């Protein structure tokens, strides 16, 4: 699919970042990065998670103060003191986490901060603002129901509200941080189209992503960042994918053995096992969940999971995935339906019983659900099976915990000064490794993983994916819920889609098609 490639050529960059250094404690996130940003074009800022792309743009947006370096906006040297200052300079950033007040309407969110001084004590009248926003919506092609509360809007629409916030304020540079995370393939196309429209009117866009195919689709120029260093800037039309991948990834990954970069080559499964029907491990029948007010959250979900199978669950975030995994693992009880593990009805079993029967879980939200921050790394590694380390069900056997923890830290390369260190001191990637280590240590028969590679760099992602594949070879069943369709297509045996609490479609590997799945993700049923 092709996007119109018009871009307005400008001579002088609107923004120049020069020699930007930024460190957080012991970690140097940016090592003297120099980057020009022009209006009238899309600049793809490409790099793996942890490369420093978001950090660099956060510096530009006034969220972080650089330790060294200069910033020029429109030719003048500036010190950007705050996001508000950045906006006044014509720069706006839309983060992965939308900065919206869920109880306010879309219009109210756009209105925050738009009036100041004595004028702001007047009674609120948003009609003028509404008119302005309507004009902007027409010009950009991004439509939103302005009177609706944010919490009732799907994620794709919320993203548009964020972009409208910027456009209404007349910004010159729009920075988007991993904007496709929560979009269906069709919504991604719509976004890319909108961006090209906006660029034609003179807006400059910085598109942060770790996905190569995205920059190849939408960017005019590509800048590659790795470990806080800018490795190169290319015109999209003048560079090839292989060069870029090499730059992104460096020498650490053996591209031939890589899971992520092999494209869609089939998995190395022997043809024999393809034909032998695998025994059933988990059976879910008509699972339903209603909340306190009677709203349906999960609607008649049925499926089976076989031994040695990876079932990928695709879908835009917010369609019930979280509730789905929680019900399967026992964090919530369903209002109807049955769950059978190896023939045993576990629908109402406690979480502990499910763990004892061989289930385990890697939750998506590592900080709020994954770890106990003020407990040590060692103690965190056994959360969930801690009771099995007790003598006579009472005293904890810390000696055994210590030795197991040592093994796990080595095996999963968890970077921590000491196993007694508090878990909160670990970096995000290492916390994720801790959660993975904890899960795999229990040698689960059924593993439920929700976005397990979110925010991880390429090397770690490779490791996690290979661990998942070895777990599958050992005969376990894995329910892999992810919003990253590309990743699901790499490792799943089957893909089903969650849409508005229903499980729709079930495509086996030979029938994987991104746009078919995208239609299911958007609720388009049939053909």
């Amino acid at each position, binding site marked *: 699919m092709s996007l119109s490639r018009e871009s307005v050529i400008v001579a002088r960059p609107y923004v120049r970042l020069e020699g930007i250094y930024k460190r957080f404690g012991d970690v140097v996130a940016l090592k003297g990065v120099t980057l020009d940003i022009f209006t009238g074009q899309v600049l793809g800022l490409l790099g793996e998670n942890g490369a420093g792309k978001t950090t660099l743009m956060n510096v530009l947006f006034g969220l*972080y103060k650089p330790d060294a370096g200069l910033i020029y906006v429109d030719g003048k040297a500036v010190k950007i003191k705050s996001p508000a200052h950045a906006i006044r300079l014509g720069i706006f950033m839309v983060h992965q986490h939308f900065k919206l007040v869920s109880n306010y309407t879309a219009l109210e969110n756009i209105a925050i901060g738009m009036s100041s001084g004595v004028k702001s004590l007047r009674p609120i009248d948003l009609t003028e603002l509404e008119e302005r926003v309507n004009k902007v919506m027409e010009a950009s092609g991004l439509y939103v129901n302005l009177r609706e509360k944010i919490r009732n809007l799907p994620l794709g629409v919320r993203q548009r509200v964020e972009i409208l916030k910027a456009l209404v304020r007349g910004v010159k540079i729009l920075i988007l941080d991993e904007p496709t995370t929560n979009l269906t393939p069709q919504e991604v196309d719509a976004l890319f189209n909108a961006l090209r429209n906006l660029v034609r009117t003179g807006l400059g866009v910085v598109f942060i992503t770790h996905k190569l195919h995205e920059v190849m689709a939408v960017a005019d120029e590509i800048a590659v960042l790795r470990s806080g260093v800018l490795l190169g800037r290319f015109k999209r039309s003048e560079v090839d994918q292989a060069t870029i991948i090499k730059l992104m990834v460096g020498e650490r990954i053996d591209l031939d053995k890589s899971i992520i970069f092999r494209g869609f080559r089939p998995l190395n499964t022997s043809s024999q096992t393809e034909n032998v029907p695998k025994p059933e491990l988990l059976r879910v029948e008509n699972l339903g969940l209603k909340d306190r007010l009677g709203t349906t959250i999960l609607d008649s979900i049925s499926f089976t999971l076989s031994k040695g199978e990876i079932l990928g669950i695709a879908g835009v975030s917010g369609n019930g995935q979280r509730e789905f995994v929680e019900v399967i693992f026992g964090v919530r009880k369903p209002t109807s339906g049955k769950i059978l593990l190896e023939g045993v009805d576990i629908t109402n079993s406690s979480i502990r019983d499910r763990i004892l029967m061989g289930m385990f879980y890697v939750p998506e939200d590592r900080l709020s659900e994954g770890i106990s921050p003020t407990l040590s790394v060692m103690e965190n590694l056994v959360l969930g099976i801690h009771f099995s380390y007790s003598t006579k069900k009472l005293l904890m056997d810390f000696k055994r915990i210590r030795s197991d923890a040592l093994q796990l830290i080595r095996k999963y390369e968890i970077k921590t000064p000491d196993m007694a260190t508090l878990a909160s001191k670990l970096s995000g990637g290492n916390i994720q490794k801790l959660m993975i280590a904890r899960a795999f240590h229990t040698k689960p028969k059924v593993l439920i993983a929700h976005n397990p590679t979110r925010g991880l760099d390429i090397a770690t992602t490779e490791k996690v994916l290979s661990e998942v594949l070895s777990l599958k070879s050992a005969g376990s069943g894995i329910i892999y819920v992810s919003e990253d369709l590309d990743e699901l297509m790499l490792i799943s045996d089957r893909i089903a889609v969650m849409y508005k609490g229903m499980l729709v479609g079930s495509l086996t590997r030979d029938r994987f098609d991104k746009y078919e799945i995208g239609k299911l993700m958007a609720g388009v049923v049939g053909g």
Partner: protein
Amino acid sequence: MTASLDLAALVVGYVRSVLIYIVPYLLTSLGIVISGRSGIYNISAEGVMLLGASVTFLATYFSSGNVLVGISYAVLVGILVGLAFGFLTISLKLNQFVVGTTFFILCSGFANLLYKLFIGVTLTPPSIETLRPLTIPVMSDIPYVGDSLFKHNLLVYLSFVFVTVSYYVLYKTHVGLNFRAVGENPKAADTLGINVTLYRYVGTIIGTVLMSVSGSYLVLSTTGLYTETIVLGRGWISIGIAIFGRWHPLWSLAGSALFAGVEALVYLIQSLQSVLGIRTPPEFLLTLPFIATLIVLALVYKRAELPQAIGRPYDREAPEEYA
């Protein structure tokens, strides 16, 4: 004939006392709501009220009955406490419940300390003149309604004005939209140019000033005395009112009216009992407001709604959830 007149007088007297008792609950819960809407959960109310009462009493006493001096000192102390509380919770980002508990204990301690230092222990406690009621020109002549509603002291009228103004500013102006956004999603507000720190300091200080003045009222309204037990749990109950008022000024007004009603009821029953010659330990009735708080809190739990960011410190440089 006498029976119906007595009933009318009873009702008028009851409504009158409700309006007298409502003020401490109203001002304090309003203060808690305003702080809360900016994201700061301030549970030290009981202590700040006591401190305001103590300071007002001492300032008024030593300035020969000048009530204005008394209230000004209370406002000043409220500002100082608010600055300190804000510094610890906003700038240093300490746990708001820990700071709140500590300030409750500290402010109560200071309140009693100051009184003992300046007045000491006396046989008959000194008193000051209480606020005289203001009669509103035309309205107070209305039979029954006039007596119950329009013959109160200045602070009573002012508190209703505060509530109305707060509601208007919070919900009908741009400033209010920005202010509430700080309590719901400070990152969103920060990104759009709102000075989160400033707004939170302002919210906290308005809160503590209201709490302090609420304490002033206790001293200046009925007895003109200061005692260690003058607040008697109203600060804590006001936190409850803010909670089941869903952090909204008008619902807090309703909640305050409820508890003022309970308080007035307790005194009504007590006076009825003495008229009818029934003797029960006064303590039974005095537990009524506290039991009522427990019951109301349990009843409204289904509809609880808080400002989403309340109680959590804001750090612009903090990593996003999925770091």
